């Protein structure tokens, strides 16, 4: 594996939240703040600058927990304050200090998906598997993932995830696993599972917190190089790794990484289980071979369905339509472009010389001006001018679909059904980010007919298990009229029927509703594309069901004809005194006449 990051998007540098942005945004900025601070080693100064006007808000969130700040500093006449010594700016100042991001997430672990034991086991598995898949793909290797969960004691499990990825160089291992917000994907606008550099370290931190045991890593980068074994703990106060063990070991793999941790958790079967997650991951990653040994029950083993690696997603520059004002300011300050025009051209995708001039003209700003010389008003004019200029959609090469054929094949492996179909939509754009929707379904077979359908959601091939009702995918599924396609559906509910619905949203930047990445945010463009995808597979399901209905009717017709026409023969023989031959002729002729007729 290499750097696995999570969280704040690459563009955060550029796409800074506006004043008054939601709290979630505040947190995002805060992570960014600590990350850059730590990386640069220059604390206060570096941190304060990029945080900009969002900083007070960001700090406000963790403050009550981290620092016991008085709620009200000065409140003239307030009775509560009367008997207490008042704080002064100086006394407050002594207590104001940086909060470690590790400390922050230790206290707010629900933000990362560790809020209950069942979910914690799932999240830890998911973080490790996501990293393994990303690392293998980036190195151009066909992933082979082994997941094992062993029950050590009641509510205590040992999770190990092993991959055949490129491995991690010895010097990086401690920070990759022992430091939050340390990663390789954060500053790149490219489709990947991980984004932020939090996940696996957070899982390790949770393990350490609940069992006191360090995370164990084995990694090797090539057959000629030694394998390294590490035991690592996180110093949460400093957000720094503490290496307990660092030695060379024998390992039967030429390259790859193995993570092992002991953690508190609950293992269960059924929906939102680790079993489901692994099975769905295999489905969404047909190029991966997946082995899974659960604490109890049958082992899961799925060989890869294809030896073709997904096309490597290209990193893209941001598209002007998605940029926010703060990000634009930062961008103009740090650009290498000598003129405004060349800065726009080089830092954005789809901005040609003509488009750049058009933006400048619409904003009333000189295209030859030096970017750093623009004042606030001019940048804002520029910002407001962007939507007025017609700009090509961002390049779709940056997103890689699973593909209709492989979704179909995967569904057939995963679900026993009577009918399968899948559809990959053409790329579309929300807020300047290209994205793409894929839908698939399996109908009938052993699936329960009287229950709500099973909705399997994916974002960049990662199964989403929690917060179904908050997800754009669910919303799109509910607002699609499935009765048109032959299913029952209550108002404001998922349809009822023997159906598994598969939906993958692929994007360079999937907008999640929270850092735990459980639900896709409901941008209108995304909802629109989702519904088109669902309608496409829905129509095919409808056609299948109608066809089946017709076959059933034809069968009924045949049996009707066979049952009753002989009686017409008998009756006519009795009334008209026909011979047996004549009676048979009546039956034969009438049968032919009716079978030819199309009306039922």
């Amino acid at each position, binding site marked *: 594996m290499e750097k696995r990051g999570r969280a704040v998007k690459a563009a955060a540098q550029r796409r800074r939240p506006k004043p008054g942005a939601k709290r979630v945004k505040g947190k995002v900025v805060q992570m960014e703040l600590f990350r850059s601070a730590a990386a640069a080693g220059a604390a206060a100064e570096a941190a304060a600058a990029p945080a900009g006007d969002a900083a007070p808000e960001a700090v406000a969130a963790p403050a009550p927990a981290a620092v016991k700040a008085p709620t009200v500093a000065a409140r003239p006449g307030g009775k509560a304050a009367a008997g207490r010594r008042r704080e002064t700016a100086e006394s407050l100042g002594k207590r104001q200090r940086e909060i470690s991001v590790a400390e922050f997430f230790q206290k707010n672990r629900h933000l990362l998906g560790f809020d209950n034991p069942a979910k914690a086991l799932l999240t830890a598995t998911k973080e490790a598997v996501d990293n393994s898949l990303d690392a293998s793909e980036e190195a151009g290797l066909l992933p082979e993932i082994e997941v094992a969960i062993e029950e050590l004691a009641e509510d205590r499990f040992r999770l190990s995830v092993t991959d055949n990825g490129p491995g991690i160089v010895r010097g990086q291992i401690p920070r990759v696993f022992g430091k939050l917000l340390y990663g390789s994907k954060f500053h790149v606008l490219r489709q990947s599972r991980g984004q932020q550099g939090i996940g696996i370290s957070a899982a390790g931190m949770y393990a350490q917190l609940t069992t006191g045991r360090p995370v164990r890593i084995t990694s090797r980068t090539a057959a000629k190089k030694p394998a390294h074994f590490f035991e690592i703990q996180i110093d949460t106060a400093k957000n720094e790794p503490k290496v307990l063990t660092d030695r060379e070991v024998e390992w039967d793999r030429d390259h790859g990484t193995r993570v092992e941790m002991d953690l508190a958790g609950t293992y269960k079967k059924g929906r939102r289980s680790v079993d489901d997650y692994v099975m769905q991951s295999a489905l969404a990653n047909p190029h991966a071979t997946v082995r899974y040994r659960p604490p109890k029950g049958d082992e899961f083993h799925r060989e890869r369905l294809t030896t073709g690696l997904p096309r490597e997603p290209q990193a893209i520059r941001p598209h002007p339509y998605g940029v926010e004002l703060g990000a634009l300011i930062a961008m103009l300050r740090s650009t290498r472009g000598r003129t405004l025009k060349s800065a726009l051209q080089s830092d954005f995708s789809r901005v040609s010389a003509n488009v750049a001039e058009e933006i400048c003209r619409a904003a009333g700003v000189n295209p030859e001006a030096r970017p750093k010389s623009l004042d606030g008003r001019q940048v804002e004019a520029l910002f407001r001018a962007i939507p007025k200029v017609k700009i090509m959609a961002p390049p779709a090469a940056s997103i890689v679909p699973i593909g209709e054929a492989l979704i179909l094949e995967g569904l057939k492996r995963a679900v026993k059904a009577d009918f399968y179909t899948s559809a990959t939509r053409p790329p579309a754009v929300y807020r300047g980010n290209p994205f793409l929707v894929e839908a698939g379904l399996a109908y009938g077979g052993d699936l329960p007919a009287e229950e709500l359908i099973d909705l399997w959601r994916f974002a960049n091939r990662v199964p989403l298990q929690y917060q179904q009702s908050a997800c754009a995918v669910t919303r799109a599924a509910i607002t699609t009229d499935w009765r048109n396609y032959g299913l029952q559906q209550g108002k404001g509910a998922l349809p009822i029927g023997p159906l598994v619905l598969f939906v993958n949203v692929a994007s360079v930047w999937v907008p999640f509703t929270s850092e735990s990445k459980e639900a896709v945010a409901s941008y209108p463009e995304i909802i629109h594309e989702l519904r088109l995808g669902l309608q496409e597979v829905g129509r095919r399901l409808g056609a299948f069901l109608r066809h089946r209905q017709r076959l059933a009717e034809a069968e009924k017709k045949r049996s009707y004809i066979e049952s009753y*026409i002989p009686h*017409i023969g008998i009756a006519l023989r009795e*009334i008209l005194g026909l011979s047996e031959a004549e009676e048979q002729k*009546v039956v034969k002729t009438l049968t032919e006449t009716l079978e030819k007729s199309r009306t039922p």
Partner: protein
Amino acid sequence: MGTATVKKIEQTAGEVHRTILKRQKPRLRFPLRSLSNVKYDPKRGHFEMRGRKKERTLTVSTVKTFAQTLRMMALSKELVAQDDIATKREAYYVSKNWGEARFLEQPESDAVMDDVEALFEVNREQIGFVPEEKGGEVSGKLSIIDRDSETRKPLRIDCTRFGSGAYSIPISVEHLKFQTEAAFILVIETAGMFQRLVKHKYWKTANCVLVSMGGVPTRACRRFIRRLADFKKIPVYVFVDGDPYGISNIYRTLKVGSGNAAHLNEYFCVPQARYLGVTPQDIVDYKLPTHPLKDVDIKRARDAIKNDPFFQHHRAWVDAVEHLLKMGVRAEQQALAKWGLNYVIDTYLPEKLKQPEKFLP
């Protein structure tokens, strides 16, 4: 009659047979059996069919009913040819030999039988099927000439000589002949009132023939009254409960026939019948004890003046029914007992019969 029916059946079946051999879909045309397909002809005095027909083409979805209709026709032909009869219930059981084409419940076979009856525009007795229902009872100054079923010799029945009992109208009455000097026929709804009049030999006092319908009159009962009234050219007076059921179901069916078998009404109706009582005005005049109209009564009464061509034709009836609706009450025949058990014999009927021209049409 028998041979004519057999011919009709053979004709229809032959047409079906020829159509099948031409590789076309055979079809049967049935008169539509409902009140919406009848008109009231005041000259003829009964409901007539408007001639609307439904067509049943043999398709996959009608093949079952079609087969059942043809098998019912075959059964009918057999019955008529052998001069035998089958009740509706028996016909239903015969169908149990038809394998897949058998009827599961009797209403299914009744409906197919009604279709066949209407198809040939005959009554079901003519195609060999008879109802279970009882035909009504007769008492009074009347002799009926029937014939012995074995010897075929005439058999004379004196309706004054049944004591406290009465003569039962048979299912088929076409062959009966009559001898009577009675001045009119009094037709009564309930067996209870009939019993009282028989007990006190009211037929002797009033010089009449008493007929009990026991509810809505059967076809045989209607035909019997009709033939008797036609034969001696005597009037028919009807005495029923003063409620929407007595008026629109019992009296209307007796007088002009039913909407369901309109092709037969020509024979099964008594156009000369007049409504003696209990009238809505009687309720007032005789201060009769009443019960409130139920919802079904109100619906039935409204339906009569809104949809029934017979009531719509007679202004007097529309007024009477509206009067009843306005009062919101009903009164039974036996409510007259309030004034004494024999008040009906001593006072009510004599008073009424003084002015037959005032009877409702």
